[in-house]
């Protein structure tokens, strides 16, 4: 018993070290989305092209919904990757969040347009209903319109391979 007691500081140290080590790899900004495994909120809104669309128009296949704006620095970073994904055949819908629609149209003509269409959310009302906290954010939708995943921050090849692809594969498998 007394021999065992000698090891108490070591055990305490090991437990603390394990917890702190785990803490280092946690992102304190990470916030689970309340929308995950729930359907998108219903809406009917205008696109940048002036068409009226609703949540039903986002259903039908696996798709990602990208929340972006021309004022958002990280959106500049991720745009090239979105163009690449679109070229690979990924269906991308956009939500132009609290932005000037004309600035957004100019951005798409200059940098390429990876989106099927862009919903104009100038007031941020749709964003609020979806629990958006800022741009960029990217949602993965299943064919029936359920939100499988929400990613905050820029989307890149690493995030796509680590978070999005496995989910799509698993969902398609069963």
């Amino acid at each position: 018993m007394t021999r065992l007691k000698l090891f108490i500081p070591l055990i305490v140290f090991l437990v603390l070290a394990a917890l702190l080590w785990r803490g280092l790899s946690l992102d304190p900004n990470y916030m689970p989305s309340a929308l995950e495994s729930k359907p998108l909120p219903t809406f009917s809104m205008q696109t940048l092209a002036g068409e009226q669309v609703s949540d039903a128009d986002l259903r039908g296949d696996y798709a990602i919904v990208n929340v972006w704006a021309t004022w958002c620095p990280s959106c500049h970073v991720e745009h090239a990757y979105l163009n690449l994904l679109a070229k690979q055949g990924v269906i991308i819908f956009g939500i132009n969040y609290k932005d000037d629609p004309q600035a957004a149209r100019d951005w798409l003509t200059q940098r390429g347009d990876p989106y099927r269409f862009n919903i104009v959310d100038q007031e941020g009302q749709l964003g609020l209903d979806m629990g958006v906290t800022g741009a960029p954010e990217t949602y993965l939708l299943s064919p029936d319109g359920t939100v499988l995943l929400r990613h905050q921050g820029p989307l890149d090849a690493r995030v796509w391979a680590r978070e999005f692809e496995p989910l799509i594969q698993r969902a398609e498998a069963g």
Partner: protein
Amino acid sequence: MRWIAIVALVLSVAAQAVVETYEFSDDSYRARYLEFTQVLRCPKCQNQNLADSNAPIAADLRKELHRLLEEGKTDEDITRFMVSRYGDYVLYDPPLEYRTLVLWAGPVVMLLIGLVVVFGLVRKRRPESTDAAIDVHLSDREREQLAQLLKDDKGNA
């Protein structure tokens, strides 16, 4: 002169704290608005409530809160509105459920562990001290010797 400086200082702090102003049709709405902006957490911030944060999303939520209050929504409606969009994260007082069990029970468990440790230490120490203090059973002979010694001691002094 000093008074003017102090008053100016106090006023400037007050002006900074107010991000935007809302008109309320009922005074009770204002009280509930202030209460809600204190207990709701800004979803974009590490540790700021809606009242303290000047993040755009916090301003949006304050606007939304004002709208909901003016629509006559109850406290439960408003809490449900926020949680359905931003999850339990927005509540500074999260509900007791399986996921938050550690959060709620943790301090109590820690306190209990501490009490057990302290109790154990105290109990272990007591027998040694009582041995010394109370276990003084002197026989009549010993008592006599002690009295003799004390008397000698006095005589020497």
